[in-house]
């Protein structure tokens, strides 16, 4: 099945084209958003669900994988943990002066 529901792609596309989002994007990034990609993903999703078109499946997966890769563009500043810090859940000693 597609990575997201087709309704999610449609929502993202329509949200991207809205005035509020355009304003927020301009304020945060200094340019207007590009929404064509969500539209293409939505159309690929519909093609996938209705006809199981192989080309549409591949296009959609490539698009989503590219999104994931874009997020990993920058080298992380810190190393990730494998589990929370050891004292995360330990009770605090409330009587100890801070």
């Amino acid at each position, binding site marked *: *099945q597609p990575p997201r529901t087709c309704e999610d792609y449609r929502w993202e596309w329509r*949200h991207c084209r809205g005035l509020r989002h355009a304003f927020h994007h*301009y304020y945060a990034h*200094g340019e207007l958003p590009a929404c064509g990609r969500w539209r293409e993903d939505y159309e690929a999703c519909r093609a996938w669900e209705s006809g199981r078109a192989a080309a549409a499946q591949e296009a959609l997966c490539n698009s*989503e994988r590219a999104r994931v890769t874009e997020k990993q563009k*920058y080298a*992380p500043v810190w190393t990730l943990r494998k589990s929370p810090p050891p004292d995360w859940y330990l009770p*605090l000693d409330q009587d100890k002066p801070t």
Partner: protein
Amino acid sequence: TVFNDRHFSCEDCDGCVSGGFDSATSQIVLCQNNIRQQSHMNRVVTHELIHAFDHCRAHVDWFKNVKHLACSEIRAANLSGDCTLMNEIARFKFGLKGHHQTCVRDRAIRSILAVRKVSKETAEKAVDEVFDACFNDLEPFGRIPHSKTDAKRAYRDFKNRDRYNANL
């Protein structure tokens, strides 16, 4: 997971600080004498939760590595709503095109200087070095939440993450 009675503490604070994250105890401190509006409280809680999230998921050297501190402050200013247009206007800071990033940079520098004894140049250099990486690190939201709608969408994406990852 964060628990109200373990990870939050409401205290009186000096000066005009609104809150902080104590990495030694993994606890968020909320300054009950300096927060007077619900919207401000929401913002401070989100801001400190970003720090708590970073402390929980990564080896952040809060005290000895200024770049680590800078990164978390950039993310907290970016994702908490600290830098909305209305908040900036209320601070008499005016700007529109990409002003969010100017605000995030400035507030991160201010936060560093408030908690560490480093020079302004050191703080600025650290922020500039990690800005691109950290401004674009939008975890756990996956987007900059400008509204409740955005926040709800982010939560929806989180709930559907297994399906997303399985079908890439």
